[in-house]
């Protein structure tokens, strides 16, 4: 049994910390002078993190609600939807008998918006925006980000992108409805569908603002990690969370500008009459003058972002899970360096696999082989990570709580979804499986649900760091078990649908006798989706309830973690540490070392003791 020593962080920082004369530079705290500069236009990374999180939660609810509505259409097409008319208005047409039908164009809009919102606003901004902001300055021992001002802009560009997208939901022609990937010609020709007009204009505007937000944030994260680390915090002493955010930010800086370039060409096609993406096309019986464009060009540019984007989503979740698992298993993370190198490998490979999204678009089959090989190689670093998570848990003194349960659930989801990735990465199997529910099942499990599990693990674990209180554990466990079972209930059956060839994105299968016997399965999926949605509402209730009424955090380091964020005061001021900043003496995973339960990073090495991180 490891003995638990109590550390006095204040004394340790005072004796060993680094004096950077922080308060001598500030005459009064310019960051927290009024309500407006403290809570709204804040430049403090802790506030900005909470802004990202709460905005992300808002979008999460909106996006999830959309999925419930289109699942109702898929599961219960014979039921009247007249009762949603107060919410959706003219998109529900009610006939004389009072039977309400969802307009097909709005069904497509819902599917499109669900994808856009979840991928960009929730799992990019809400996940990496929240935790990069919260943890990077805390865990590297910095007063704040390298540029707090750009950091504030990063949030407000995201907010603005959200406002534009939200506005587009209420257009009389509806939001964009051509799929979240916005392939031409639906995205180029305003007359192609009702959402391709003003809806698409706002969609592009919103995403360009979003790209700006990601770049401002990413530049800040990388700069902070490389330039603002405290004394003793070498790269190999950084927690895996920081490594994950660091690599994520680099991926964002390299891939989002390419998406922006793709969008510029798209905008030129839409407004200036150029023909980058369209050629010899008829709309409504009318031949257009555009000649010489190629829609495949857009796909290349889009997926050059699109594939790194899925790692931009999952890497932060991996980082959070590594940290949470290690803390709650009371064991050092297994294979720390292997974890870092596998993340670097995944990050590198993510740039040379984009065409596996385009096997069926007519790309050269010889070219496909290249992408198949690199896609399958991604399984290697992914398997290394899974192995290390499981071995971290093995013989651990595991504390089961909402945070650690979600972290373990993440590993489960990542394995289940990752395995189907090996199917889809083969260009020959993709002939059968592309654009079916098999794909839907794969990416929802591996980057949708898994990323959410990582995010939930992070929220439950770092909630005390954000709000000085704990989330309700009972509600947390109901949330975990319900979501775990419910998410599998939603997405597992979709593999069968996909193997049978059921195409994704279809509004109705009434005219396909082949798929008639899937009625029951579709109903089952829809019911499960509604249950899962209700559980996420429970999470949101728990979140806001706990901000005000949760159990109060009494000690600085409630989880017995080693990292620096738990050495700052519970109600950390601007600048995070009131006096000196902590200096670091060891790697972040000294659990169960030399019979001690844990040794924080700020504790100097004993005589003759060796640091594990080097």
């Amino acid at each position, binding site marked *: 049994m490891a003995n638990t020593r109590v550390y006095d962080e204040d004394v340790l920082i005072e004796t060993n910390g680094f004096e950077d*004369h922080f308060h001598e530079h500030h005459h009064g705290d310019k960051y927290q002078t009024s309500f407006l500069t403290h809570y709204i236009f804040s430049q403090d990374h802790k506030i900005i993190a909470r802004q990202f999180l709460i905005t992300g939660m808002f979008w999460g609810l909106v996006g999830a609600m959309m999925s419930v509505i289109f699942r109702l259409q898929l599961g219960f097409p014979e039921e009247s939807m007249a009762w949603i008319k107060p919410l959706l208005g003219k998109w529900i047409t009610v006939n004389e008998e009072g039977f309400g039908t969802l307009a097909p164009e709005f069904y497509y809009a819902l599917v499109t918006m669900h994808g856009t919102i979840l991928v960009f606003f929730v799992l990019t901004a809400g996940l990496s925006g929240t935790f990069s902001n919260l943890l990077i300055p805390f865990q590297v021992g910095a007063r704040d980000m*390298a540029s707090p001002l750009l950091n504030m802009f990063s949030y407000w560009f995201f907010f603005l992108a959200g406002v534009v997208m939200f506005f587009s939901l209420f257009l009389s022609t509806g939001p964009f409805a051509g799929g979240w990937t916005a392939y031409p010609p639906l995205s180029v020709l305003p007359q192609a569908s009702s959402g391709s007009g003003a809806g698409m204009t706002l969609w592009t505007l919103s995403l360009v603002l979003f790209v700006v937000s990601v770049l401002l944030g990413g530049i800040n994260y990388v700069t902070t990690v490389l330039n*603002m680390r405290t004394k003793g915090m070498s790269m190999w002493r950084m927690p895996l969370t920081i490594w994950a955010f660091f690599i994520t930010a680099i991926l964002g800086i390299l891939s989002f500008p390419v998406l922006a*370039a793709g969008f*510029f060409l798209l905008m030129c096609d839409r407004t*200036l009459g150029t023909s*980058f993406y369209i050629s010899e096309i008829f709309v409504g019986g009318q031949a257009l003058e555009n000649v010489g464009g190629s829609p495949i060009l857009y796909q290349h540019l889009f997926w050059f972002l699109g594939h790194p984007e899925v790692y931009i989503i999952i890497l932060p979740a991996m980082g959070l899970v590594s940290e949470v698992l290690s803390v709650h298993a009371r064991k050092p993370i297994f294979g720390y360096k292997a974890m870092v190198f596998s993340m670097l490998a995944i990050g590198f490979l993510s740039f040379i696999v984009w065409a596996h999204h385009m096997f069926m678009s007519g790309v050269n089959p010889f070219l496909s082989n290249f992408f198949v090989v690199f896609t399958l190689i991604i399984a290697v670093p992914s398997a290394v990570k899974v192995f290390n998570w499981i071995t971290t848990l093995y013989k651990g003194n595991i504390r089961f709580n909402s945070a650690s349960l979600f972290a373990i659930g993440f590993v489960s989801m990542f394995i289940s979804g990752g395995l189907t990735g090996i199917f889809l990465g083969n260009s020959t199997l993709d002939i059968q499986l592309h654009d079916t529910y098999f794909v839907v099942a794969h990416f929802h499990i591996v980057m949708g649900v898994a990323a959410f599990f990582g995010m939930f693990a992070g929220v439950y674990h770092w909630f005390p760091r954000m709000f000085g209180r704990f989330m309700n554990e009972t509600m947390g466990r109901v949330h975990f078990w319900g979501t775990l079972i419910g998410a599998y209930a939603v997405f597992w059956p979709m593999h069968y649908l996909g193997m049978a060839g059921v195409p994704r994105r279809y509004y109705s299968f009434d005219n396909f006798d082949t798929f008639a016997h899937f009625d029951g399965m579709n109903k089952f999926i829809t019911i499960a989706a509604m249950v899962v949605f209700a559980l996420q509402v429970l999470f949101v209730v728990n979140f806001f309830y706990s901000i005000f009424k949760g159990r109060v955090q009494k000690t600085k380091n409630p989880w017995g973690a080693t990292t620096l964020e738990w050495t700052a005061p519970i109600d950390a001021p601007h600048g995070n540490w009131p006096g000196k*900043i902590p200096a670091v003496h060891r790697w972040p995973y000294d659990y169960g070392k030399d019979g001690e339960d844990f040794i924080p990073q700020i504790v100097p090495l004993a005589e003759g003791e060796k640091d594990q991180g080097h």
Partner: protein
Amino acid sequence: MDTGMMEATMQKAPIQYTGKWHPKKFALMLAMGGIIMMFSALTSAYIVRKGAGNWLEFKLPAIFLYNTLVLIMSSVTAHLAYGAFKKEDLLRYRWMTALTFVLGLLFLALQVVGWQQLKAIGVPLDGNPSGSFIYVISGTHAAHILGGLGALFLGLRAAFGPANFSASRKLSIQLVNVYWHFVDVLWIYLIIFFILQ
């Protein structure tokens, strides 16, 4: 990282930086990395599209070449302005900064003339993609020049204000100059790309 070296840097600097670069300069490097990615995407799209055939061949108006010289000159004056700043030669620093700004404006104006000539020789924006690419790529570059001119304008205002040779002013000039040289080199890359293609 070597702890001894880090301690040495920290004793010098009032605020701790672990890297050799000033964070702002480093952040600018990252932003430039993003811009490079964007232009490599555009020029790769150009190559891919050209490979697909149905491609109008034409000769680029010579004004784009002359214009390159204007931009290179503005980079030289920007560098001279920085040198004068370091020597605290106020007059030279002021006029070189002003000259840089004017040359930048001239570059933009000549680009517009170039686009008009392009249109005049039968290569409109909305014609064959081979022409559209020239407009869009050089237009996107012009937008980055415009951003640089905005920063130069702030530098100009500071130069003609009360004499200020502080360290923070030096850093601002360095940042603007690095960016200005960058968009200059970017244009040289683009013009060579257009000529070779």
